[in-house]
């Protein structure tokens, strides 16, 4: 099992956001987390990546408990994240952004048979990244920045890639491009945890999904259930209360 989250509670200061969330992601599996804003999706991502401390519950990664580990250790363990805010360093060039991740990625141990991502791999996935290497990130468009963010995450050589609201505010063409890359990634045997607003995209990218509302998982979409769920009102309800 790549990731196991058990009865996790977390929040900001005294305000609880997650009220006992349990999810899991198997090896080579792609899982989506969907739900309206304020449901706690981003808080869940931050807790998994060690950016917020959990107040209760457990997080295990490939069998190892990482609940209390410092945030900067999770990358070494094999979790890479593309934050909702992207977390890029705007005043640095694309090349420098990549270099920093490459530096960390080079220092980590991965199991036998893990084929590390090289810069060449990344340029192949996102040709635009290669073109813009010398440009400061803050001068790129939103879509280009998102590609840099994904490319950077891959250079950490992750076994689990967490993507928070990857497609928000991007033009459909760009979304398509990123989608095709993600499909390519799955073929390389990487687990994906994707937070997504668009149900259609979530369905296109993942096998299973958890629907969150008000800090809890309120619904699970199992293997092969996407089709039926799309027409079902459970999701509609979580979004539109319709």
């Amino acid at each position, binding site marked *: 099992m790549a990731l196991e989250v058990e009865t996790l509670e977390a929040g900001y200061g*005294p*305000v609880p*956001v997650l009220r006992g969330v349990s999810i899991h992601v198997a090896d080579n599996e792609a899982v989506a987390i969907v739900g*309206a*804003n*304020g449901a706690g999706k981003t808080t869940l991502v931050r807790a998994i990546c060690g950016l917020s401390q959990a107040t209760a519950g457990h997080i295990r990664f490939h069998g190892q408990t990482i609940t209390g580990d410092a945030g900067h250790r999770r990358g070494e363990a094999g979790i890479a994240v593309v934050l909702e805010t992207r977390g890029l360093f705007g005043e640095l060039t694309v090349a420098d952004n990549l270099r920093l991740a490459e530096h960390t990625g080079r220092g980590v141990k991965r199991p036998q048979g893990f084929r590390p991502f090289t810069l060449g791999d990344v340029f192949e996935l996102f040709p635009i990244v290669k073109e813009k290497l010398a440009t400061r990130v803050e001068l790129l468009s*939103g879509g280009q920045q998102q590609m840099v963010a994904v490319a950077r995450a891959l250079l950490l050589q992750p076994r689990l890639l967490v993507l928070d*609201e990857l*497609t*928000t*505010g991007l033009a*459909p063409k760009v*979304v398509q491009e990123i989608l095709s890359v993600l499909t390519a990634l799955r073929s390389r045997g990487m687990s994906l945890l994707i937070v997504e*607003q*668009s*149900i*259609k*995209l979530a369905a296109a990218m993942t096998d299973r999904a958890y629907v969150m509302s*008000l800090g809890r998982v309120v619904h699970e979409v199992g293997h092969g259930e996407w089709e039926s769920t799309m027409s079902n009102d459970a*999701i*509609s309800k979580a*979004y*539109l*209360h*319709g």
Partner: protein
Amino acid sequence: MNTVMTHAPVKSQPLMALRGVAHQFGGLVVLRDVSFTVSRGRIAGLIGPNGSGKTTLFNIASGFLRPANGQIFIDGRDITAASVQERSRQGLIRTFQTPKVFQHMSVRENIEMGLYATTGAGFLASMLATPGARGERARIRRDAQEVGERFGLGSHLNTRAGDLPAGQQRIVELARAYMTKPRVLLLDEPSSGLSSDEVELLRNWVRTLSNEGITVLLVSHDMGLMSVCDTVHALYFGKIIASGSMAAIQADPMVREAYLGG
């Protein structure tokens, strides 16, 4: 208290109007030619997926941001260039997505701040505690007590507002806004971080305030809360793509497309 809120029953004329509002950050266009009106005493809603420009539009309406183009009117008067304070004196009051209560002040003092614009004791009068200032202060306290109790905060009036749970802080913010006797109330994501019971309570409050004649503009993701609105405008990529009742909006194919896939 109820006598305090006397608004003209005329509901035909729009109290608030946005005309051709457009904005961009750097090269990124976030709003293009947004126009809508809010009728007196009605509840208008604004929905849209993340990144659709809601927050920008809200900041423009409340005066925290000057629009690149377009105008905003209150009661027919152009307030596009008015400061936040001036808008406040005109009766336009907003709340914040993360509740901004005055943390180190008591709940009572928070609510008292609602009367700041309509009271007058200055530095000297307050220092000397002149009869005028004392009388005014007593009246403020009394009114705050009354409003606080009305909003169910009676037992927390002396609590430090920052020590309250998030849900209660929202209510404090609402009570404070109510205390100003606003003509237009702009509520920014008022239900985020609330439990479902608290959202229900909030919904009732919005309804009650509207019944008292306060015009409300509500921005929220929370469709349950949004059903309180008389009219809902759906924003997508900086444009209004649909307007109408919540039921109509939910059935609108463009809105469903915007939300469910894109």
